[in-house]
Structures are given as structure tokens and as C-alpha cells.
């Protein structure tokens, strides 16, 4: 069995609008258990589980929780980042729409262990259905005593509010997201201080992705050590994969870490339609590397992916067949990031304008060796000097193709002006 359904095990089985369905299928049992545990024991279990953040950066979850727990403040916030805007990702939408209480349960456990007093679920404005389902689910949870004052007679108070985005990719970045919850334009802040020190409304704040929170009830249920047995030593548990592009069976698949890209694309995805040839695969979303077919035996694993100066990302796999022009795809990506740049820092704001100009020269067969040099150095400068994750990760796709598809650049230069 290639798939391992844990976070997705209730998909299609429970009615997402019914908290009763969730409870009848084992929901909120982990919360009850957690409320009887010492707070530090919960964080220890999460450390034992070796759970890493599922939003893209892969940071160890217990470290952030511990930082928040150590802060002394009358108010501490918990934020669930459901601003899933990275093109090619739709697994958080699936989690929110199919099993809304799972991420809520994870938030409550997290809040209890790290002493958060209020939580926010920030959902992008384009996800209308997920927004209404989550608002409904939060109200139900409050009615049943899982949220609000004195949760399940434990003496612990915690409530959640659903907030809506209004169309800005950069708000998925944690500080930009906090600015947005505060009712401002979503422009990032300079760090440090990190959100666990000074976050939302200047208070200590812990931010995790939807999928990260969804893992917590399972860790409490089975113990951190058992959880750590799933996957690989460096990447434990499962990963939700958003599989799209030129593929026979696109969709969300939950697999243990350690399966290969080829397993997912060929076995679960059924390969490329109409017996065409797979040309390239983009990993993680628009900000991820583009790799050729021969690399598909790569395992889905945080450490393996770091070889690309990249991260696992949030688990998107976008398959492209041999009808597609590399530079057309790169132009889409560069235009996307140029549009989404918030404009605060120079490398990102100005860099995207120049990247677009240079990629167009390659696309339209007008490129010179000097353009290749400019493109390469500009992409690296943006990667190294941009203020936030957007500008740092936006050139990754391009940089990866300068390695794996370098011949295509040289061919374009050679045929420049000779159509």
C-alpha cells in the first residue's frame, strides 16, 4: 500500500458539517486525553514524534511550541495558516472542506500545551466553501464545549475566530499574515523578533499550517514514538500531496514520507495521459524546483529536498508533458511572483521586472550569452537578498532549470534571431 490514510481517513466518511460524525469517528478523543496530560509532556510527545511543519519550511514543531510556552504574557495567540495560495496546492482546502474539526482539535491541543489564549484560522478569500465550513465547525465546537471558557471542565479557556483573506499570495508568509489579521496591507516585517516573541498585535504568537495542526491529535493518540515510526528517520509521519498537471488521476494523496516521486506520479497518478512523455515536474508549487524525468526516483523527504536549496514545500507535484515550452512555463511563474510581490524590498520588486524581461528574451528567441549571465546572477541575488520567503523562493524554479535544462538556454541563444 503506497497510500497511508491518517489525516485523510475520515474523508468521505464524515459529513463535514456534523460534529457528531466527527465525534462518532474518534474525534476529540485526543483532546480529552491531552487535557489530562502535563503540558510539557504534550510538547515532549511532539518532540518524540519529530513532527516538522507542513506549510513548506519544515521547521520542528515542538521548538516553536516550546518558545511560545516559555513566553510570559497575559495574551498569547495561535494562528492556523490556511492561506493556501501557492499554485498547485490544494491539500489544505481538502482538509478544511472534508474534515474541519481535525485541524480545530489540533489547535486546541496546541493552545493548551503552549498556553495560547486565542486562536485564529486565516483562510484565503478565494476559498468560500472552506470559509463557511470552518465558521460552522468552530461554532459547533463552541456549542459542544470544545471551545470557549473552561473547555470540557478542565479550567482551560481558548476560543477560535475565522478570518478571511482578500487575495494576496504574500500573506501566506507568516508576518504578512499577521499584518493581514490586524487589518492591514499584508507586508512582511523584519525578523527577528520572531512571531513567538512579538507576533500578532505585538503578542507572542505561534503559527502553523493547517496540516501541521491536523497531525497533533494522532501524536497524542498513538504517542510520539509510534508516530516517528511512520515515514523516514528525518521526515516522520505522512505528507499530503497535491498532484496536478498532465496526469491521469490528479488529486490529493496521503503518503508516508519516503515514497518516491515516481511512485506518486506513476502508481497513484496513473502517469501522463495519452502516452505522452513526461518532460518536467515542478515540486512544491510555483516557488519550487523544476526537475527532469530522470530524477523522479527521489524520495519525498525533507533532507533529500534540501539538496535543491529548496524545501519539500507544501507537497505539490505538478507534472508537465513534452508539449510544453520551458520558457512559457517560467514566464507564467515569473509573472505570477511579479504580480504578488508586495513591493517592500528592492530585490523582489525590481528583480521580477527584470526577470520577466529576460525570460521573454529567451522565449522569443532574442537572447544572448550576456542575458544568460544576467539571468543567472539576478536570480541568485534575489534568492539571497530578498526580505521574505516570496522573493527568496521565487527564483528557485528558474535557478533549478539553469542546472537541469541548461541545454535549452544554450539552444535558445544559438538560434536567437534565426527563426
Amino acid at each position, binding site marked *: 500500500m503506497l497510500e497511508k490514510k491518517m489525516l485523510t481517513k475520515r474523508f468521505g466518511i464524515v459529513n463535514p458539517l456534523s460534529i457528531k460524525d466527527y465525534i462518532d469517528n474518534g474525534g476529540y478523543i485526543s483532546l480529552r486525553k491531552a487535557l489530562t496530560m502535563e503540558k510539557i509532556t504534550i510538547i515532549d510527545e511532539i518532540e518524540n514524534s519529530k513532527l516538522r511543519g507542513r506549510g513548506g519550511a519544515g521547521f520542528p514543531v515542538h521548538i516553536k511550541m516550546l518558545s511560545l510556552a516559555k513566553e510570559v504574557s497575559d495574551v498569547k495567540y495561535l494562528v492556523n495558516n490556511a492561506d493556501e495560495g501557492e499554485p498547485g496546492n490544494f491539500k489544505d482546502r481538502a482538509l478544511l472542506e472534508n474534515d474541519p474539526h481535525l485541524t480545530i482539535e489540533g489547535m486546541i491541543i496546541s493552545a493548551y500545551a503552549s498556553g495560547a489564549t486565542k486562536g485564529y484560522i486565516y483562510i484565503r478569500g478565494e476559498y468560500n466553501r472552506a470559509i463557511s465550513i470552518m465558521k460552522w465547525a468552530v461554532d459547533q465546537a463552541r456549542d459542544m464545549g470544545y471551545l470557549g471558557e473552561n473547555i470540557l471542565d478542565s479550567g482551560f479557556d481558548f476560543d477560535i475566530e475565522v478570518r478571511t483573506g*482578500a487575495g494576496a499570495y504574500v500573506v501566506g508568509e507568516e508576518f504578512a499574515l499577521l499584518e493581514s489579521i490586524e487589518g492591514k496591507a499584508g507586508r512582511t516585517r523584519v525578523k527577528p523578533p520572531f512571531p513567538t516573541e512579538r507576533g500578532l498585535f505585538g503578542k507572542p504568537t505561534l503559527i502553523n499550517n493547517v496540516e501541521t495542526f491536523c497531525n497533533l491529535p494522532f501524536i497524542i493518540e498513538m504517542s510520539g514514538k509510534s508516530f516517528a515510526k511512520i515515514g523516514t528517520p528525518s521526515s516522520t509521519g505522512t505528507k499530503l500531496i497535491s498532484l496536478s498537471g498532465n496526469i491521469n488521476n490528479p*488529486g490529493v494523496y496521503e503518503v508516508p514520507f519516503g515514497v518516491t516521486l515516481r511512485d506518486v506520479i506513476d502508481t497513484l497518478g496513473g502517469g501522463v495521459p495519452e502516452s505522452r512523455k513526461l518532460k518536467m515536474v515542478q515540486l512544491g508549487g510555483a516557488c519550487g524546483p523544476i526537475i527532469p524525468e530522470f530524477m523522479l526516483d527521489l524520495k519525498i523527504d525533507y533532507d533529500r529536498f534540501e539538496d535543491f536549496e529548496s524545501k519539500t514545500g507544501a507537497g505539490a507535484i505538478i507534472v508537465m508533458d513534452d508539449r510544453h515550452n520551458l520558457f512559457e512555463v517560467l514566464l507564467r511563474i515569473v509573472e505570477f511572483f511579479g504580480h504578488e510581490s508586495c513591493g517592500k524590498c528592492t530585490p523582489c520588486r525590481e528583480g521580477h521586472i527584470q526577470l520577466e524581461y529576460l525570460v521573454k528574451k529567451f522565449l522569443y528567441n532574442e537572447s544572448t550569452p550576456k542575458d544568460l549571465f544576467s539571468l543567472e546572477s539576478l536570480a541568485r541575488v534575489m534568492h539571497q537578498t530578498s526580505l521574505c520567503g516570496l522573493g527568496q523562493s521565487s527564483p528557485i524554479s528558474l535557478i533549478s532549470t539553469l542546472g537541469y535544462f541548461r541545454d535549452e538556454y544554450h539552444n535558445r541563444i544559438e538560434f536567437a534571431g534565426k527563426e
Partner: protein
Amino acid sequence: MQLREILGKYPKTEDYLIEILLDYQKTKIHHYLSEEELKEIAEHLNISESKVSSVMTFYTLFSMKPKGQYVIQICHDVPCYVNDQNSILKTLTNLLNIQVGETTEDKMFTLEYTSCLGACDKAPAMRIGEKTFTALTPNKVKAILAEYRGKKHA
């Protein structure tokens, strides 16, 4: 719904600005907020108009110019692009006789690009208002537009 009614639904703090703007804009047939309305919201929250304006212009879902009754947003990110989003765009521009960013003369439709709708497994995708349409083909787009045009005369 009146603006005052919507303002009354939320706590009178600045962090609800985006929620208020979204909520109110939804009630407007042409999906935009006027300068007067912006001013009223600013006064209510006791913040400057420029602050409200900076938020309005930062987020793509807000508009300060009137749009068509139905805003058609077509995704043009890579998963949709590799699934022949081009033919969908062509069908839309031909049928509506406008380019992306324009509004039809009868003020019925505005055509825009949107960022990823998270429907990549059913690409290509577009949204009309709050409704997402997926697995589009040129014929499907024709049928959808005909249905929306029919609504006008109904």
C-alpha cells in the same frame, strides 16, 4: 444591505477592516466601494481614509471601480496552463468580446485573471462570483455563459 448594518455586525476595531470591506462589497451589484463609502468606514473605525485605501488597493479582491455584475476570474497558473487554459481564455474573450481586465458594454461581465483557485486537480478552472467551475472545456464555458446571460432576462 446598508453599510451601517454591516458595520454594526463587527467590533469597532481596526482589525475587522478586511472583513467589513469583503462583507460590504459582496452586497454591491458592481463589486466596488465608492470613496464616500470608504470614508464612512474610515470614520466608523476611527482610522484615516488613506489607511482604508491602502488596504483596498493591496488586496486583489477589492475594487474602487465598478465591475460587471458577474466577475469572471480565470486561473492562469501552471497547473491550469498545462491543461489548455489558453483555449478557455480564447473562448471567453471571443464570446464576451472583451480582453482580460475589461467589462462588457452591457456591464454584465468583467473578465479577470485570478491566482490559483486550489482546483488544480480539476484544471482548468475559473470562478464567477463565489462559484468555482472546473474541468472546463470551450463547450462547457459556452454553456455556463449562456446560463448566466439567461439569468439577466429571467
